[in-house]
């Protein structure tokens, strides 16, 4: 324990960050994916229903806004999402489904991203996690938007030119 520590001579001190290389990006698209924020992607408008809605209520919202996914929220928190895939898989041949609560048919606890995350993280969730729609939360955990296939492609396309 009695290791003798030599005091640093003035002028000998080396800043540990002095040889830090900032990340290099091959092009603008890669930089945008890593250094911008999800907030700059097209994340609005957002279609949502409350937790106590029925399946019919969600279908009405989807038909009205012509969207393929609604966020099910409870006091601003995303508790689930209900998408066209859920309709195809669970609702399509169940004639009694319409009156049932949405919570029986939604996909609970969706993976989310924050507005302050980088777009690459959203792409990561989509490609590796296999999620098609990702709700976007602000830093207070409130749902403020949603990212879907169209919007992601739109974002990539915008930065490709």
């Amino acid at each position, binding site marked *: 324990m009695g290791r003798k520590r030599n005091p640093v001579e003035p002028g000998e001190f080396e800043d540990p960050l002095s040889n830090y290389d900032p990340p290099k*990006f*091959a*092009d*603008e*698209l*890669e930089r945008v*994916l*890593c250094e911008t924020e999800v907030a700059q992607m097209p994340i609005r408008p957002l279609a949502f229903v409350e937790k106590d809605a029925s399946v019919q209520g969600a*279908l*009405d919202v*989807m*038909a009205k806004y012509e969207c*393929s996914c609604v966020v099910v929220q409870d006091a601003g928190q995303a508790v689930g999402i209900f998408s*066209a*895939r859920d*309709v*195809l*898989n669970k*609702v*399509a*041949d169940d004639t009694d489904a319409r009156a049932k609560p949405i919570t029986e048919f939604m996909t609970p606890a969706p*993976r*989310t*991203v*924050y507005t*302050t995350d*980088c777009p*690459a*993280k959203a*792409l*990561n*969730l*989509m*490609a*590796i*996690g*296999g999620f*098609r729609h990702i709700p976007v*939360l602000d*830093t207070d*955990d409130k749902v403020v938007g949603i990212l879907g*296939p*169209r919007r*992601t*492609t*739109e974002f*990539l*396309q915008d930065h*490709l030119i």
Partner: protein
Amino acid sequence: MGLREDIMNETVSQLPLRTAVTVPPDTTVAQAVEMMRNTRLGCVFVVDERGRPTGKFTERQVLKLVCGCVPFDQTVGQHMVPIPESGCVKMTDPVAKVLQGMQETRLRFLCVVDSEGKVAGLTGQKGLMEYVTEHFPRLIKVQMMTSKLHMNTREGA
């Protein structure tokens, strides 16, 4: 080589393509829905006798039928939507054309056709995301999968 350059130069054949499901127009909606469930695809292509795509029937159409309470014994020919010109890409087209086609047609799926105009596969947003991830793991895979922004407790506390 950057991501942008690759998207511009590489061809559709380098994208992860999926086997497309093709059906004749007299298939019923119920059968098509069953096929989409079994293959875990969001879309079937309706083809003519020569195997050329004439239309497609997607999750969106299913959603519309369910919203409109349309019985499922009708045929997909009645409810399919025609595929616009930019909704089809060839194997030799650059990846950028897929992005462009998806943007123009506002579709999630594009039909990949061979040199004779027959359906050769299906590509879409998912394939595109996989392509970006596979080619640029440094960009995408290193991102944290956890969704929590803050830690619940102080580290070590």
